[in-house]
């Protein structure tokens, strides 16, 4: 023990760091900030440390070459002792880190911590969010599988829409005219050198400011921030009701960080590593690429935006969002901090959370995407074929063979791209059905060129049977007049 102490003294006599470290550790913070609400930032930092360690050891095996990256991941998963576990830690660590950064940001926003004098801390925090998402995206690319390959294609397609310089950005991003070896190499450099370098620099500045400016006091309704008086009030608060950060507040950070690390370890152990999915061979086109969890909402947005709005939304949307975040502390740098007095802030968070949650949920089900194998894999439920005429059953065959089932569901089986057809005969008359099938419209392709008249007749005969028992199908009231008294009667109803 004495030896350790004397080594410590010898080092400190030369490094001269002990006093300032002690001073930093023991700086006084308002006692209410020793709270379980103030632990998310430090937990994100600790997970980042884990990412550095697991990232470095993964780089011992990983080969950043388009020809070999995928097989080196297989080696990690199967041939290297616990390689799968390190990959799983790194993958789950990334999800936890993004989640913690977002939660930290929400807490900081709701507690008004971005207000004077912590504007720059918030701005650096916004940059930290951007580089954290940058790490998540570039990391997904390094898992050089089908999702990564086509994900890069999506990134390039978005970048290409930038006016004038779009094509040059694509070439810079891909390192050449196609997604290939140079693409992976540069994303490796970004993920391992450039973005982590920025992340470390931003974290250092962020932490420095947290220590210099003091941690945000617990917001009390009515305790209003004014530039003229705030700093004096804060110092009085820490003097009157302050505790030293170590050990007064840090123990909660330590417990929470340890709990988070344990959760990452548990998720990694139980759920294993992410992928890799199929090899990055662009000639294998039987694939449905999906982004990683934190970009799923974007995947849904890209499916729902009307074509004409897509380019402006893709190019202007992120700029507006980032600008809004950066300008926030300047637009409301003073005033109430408490969420109890800031209903719009609370509603904004709820709105964003509900929107992101809804889009993420939709992206997990992709109702906009045709179910590519429904026509061969999901038979028409027998209830729809019972007591049907030969023509109607022939129509059911056309329905399957022409892949209507890929986009339209019957009894909840099949695609969700178009409307469910269980009761289509109630909505559309015979003429409307024929027109819709042949000419399409309303986001449905026209099948006129692909259906013979006989096939169309059979298909429409089948569609006309799709109505609830006891509810007669839609019919054109003027049809009886136009075609004579007998022709317009309702078609036979089926039990």
């Amino acid at each position, binding site marked *: 023990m004495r030896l350790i102490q004397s080594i410590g003294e010898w080092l400190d006599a030369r490094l001269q760091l002990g006093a300032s470290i002690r001073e930093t550790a023991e700086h006084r913070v308002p006692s209410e900030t020793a709270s379980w609400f103030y632990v998310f930032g430090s937990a994100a930092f600790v997970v980042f440390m884990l990412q550095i360690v697991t990232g470095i050891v993964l780089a011992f095996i990983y080969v950043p070459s388009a020809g070999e990256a995928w097989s080196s991941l297989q080696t990690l998963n199967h041939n290297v002792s616990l390689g799968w576990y390190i990959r799983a830690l790194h993958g789950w660590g990334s999800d936890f880190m993004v989640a913690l950064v977002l939660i930290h940001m929400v807490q900081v926003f709701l507690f008004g911590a971005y207000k004077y004098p912590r504007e720059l801390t918030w701005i650096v925090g916004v940059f930290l969010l951007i580089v954290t998402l940058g790490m998540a995206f570039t990391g997904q690319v390094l898992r050089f599988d089908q999702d990564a390959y*086509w994900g890069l294609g999506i990134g390039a*397609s978005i970048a290409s829409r930038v006016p004038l310089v779009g094509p040059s950005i694509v070439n810079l991003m891909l390192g050449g005219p196609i997604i290939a070896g140079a693409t992976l190499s540069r994303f490796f450099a970004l993920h391992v050198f450039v973005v982590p370098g920025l992340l470390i620099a931003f974290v250092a500045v962020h932490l420095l400011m947290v220590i210099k400016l003091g941690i945000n006091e617990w917001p009390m309704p009515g305790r209003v921030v004014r530039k003229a008086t705030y700093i004096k009030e804060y110092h009085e608060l820490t003097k009157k009701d302050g505790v030293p950060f170590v050990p007064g507040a840090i123990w909660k950070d330590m417990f929470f960080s340890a709990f988070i690390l344990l959760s990452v370890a548990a998720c990694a152990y139980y759920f294993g590593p992410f992928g890799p999915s199929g090899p990055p061979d662009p000639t294998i086109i039987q694939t449905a690429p999906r982004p990683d969890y934190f970009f799923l909402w974007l995947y849904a947005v890209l499916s729902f935006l009307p074509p004409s709005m897509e380019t402006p939304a893709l190019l202007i949307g992120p700029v507006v969002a980032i600008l809004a975040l950066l300008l926030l502390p300047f637009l409301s740098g003073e005033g109430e901090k408490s969420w109890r007095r800031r209903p719009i802030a609370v509603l904004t968070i709820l709105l964003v959370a509900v929107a992101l949650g809804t889009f993420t949920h939709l992206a997990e089900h992709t109702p906009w995407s045709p179910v590519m194998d429904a026509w061969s894999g999901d038979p028409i439920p027998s209830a729809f074929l019972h007591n049907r005429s030969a023509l109607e059953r022939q129509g059911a065959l056309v329905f399957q063979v022409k892949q209507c089932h890929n986009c339209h569901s019957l009894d909840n089986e099949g695609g969700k791209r178009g409307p469910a057809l269980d009761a289509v005969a109630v909505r559309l008359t015979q003429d409307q059905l024929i027109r819709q099938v042949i000419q399409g419209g309303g986001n449905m392709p026209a099948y006129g060129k692909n259906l013979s008249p006989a096939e169309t007749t059979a298909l429409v005969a089948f569609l006309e049977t799709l109505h609830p028992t006891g509810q007669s199908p839609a019919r054109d009231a003027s049809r009886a007049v136009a075609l004579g008294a007998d022709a317009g009667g309702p078609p036979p109803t089926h039990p």
Partner: protein
Amino acid sequence: MTLPTGLTRRDLLMKLGILFNGIVAAILAVPIVRYLLSPVAQERKGGYELWVSLGNLEQFPSGQTRLATYRNPIVNPTDGDTADIACWVRNVDGKSFQVFAINCAHLGCPVRWFPQSGLFMCPCHGGAYYQDGSRASGPPERGLFEYKYKIDGGKLLIRPGEMPTPGHASNIVREIRPCA
């Protein structure tokens, strides 16, 4: 020593030092930036003008649409499988062809051909195209990208080179108008 302007010798030397370092930084920065921009600067060099064979014409029966693959003409040793690109070849009537890029005109995912319904469908965001490549439905703003082709010595040749993207499709024949 102080000059009449109030500038000391040390101040002057420090300013010259800054200037000297600035010049050296610029001399070093030019090649580094040039190196970084090489993917853009190389854009029009070689490879792009090459005709690449998709195989014998017999592989593409009249009236049918088949998947073809080629090795990208601009290729590096580390590219692995990624330089193998797929495309769709439609033999319209035995004489004329259409060669579509595999990439959806929306955001580049690989479209699949369904002969039964006569549609190309995209698995990502639900774009669909007719057999002639024109837009049928979904988020794409235009039809599929189409390569220039020629027939030489019984082989079908195309001029690929780069991944077509919505903002840049220089090797592409024309924009296909949707058949109303």
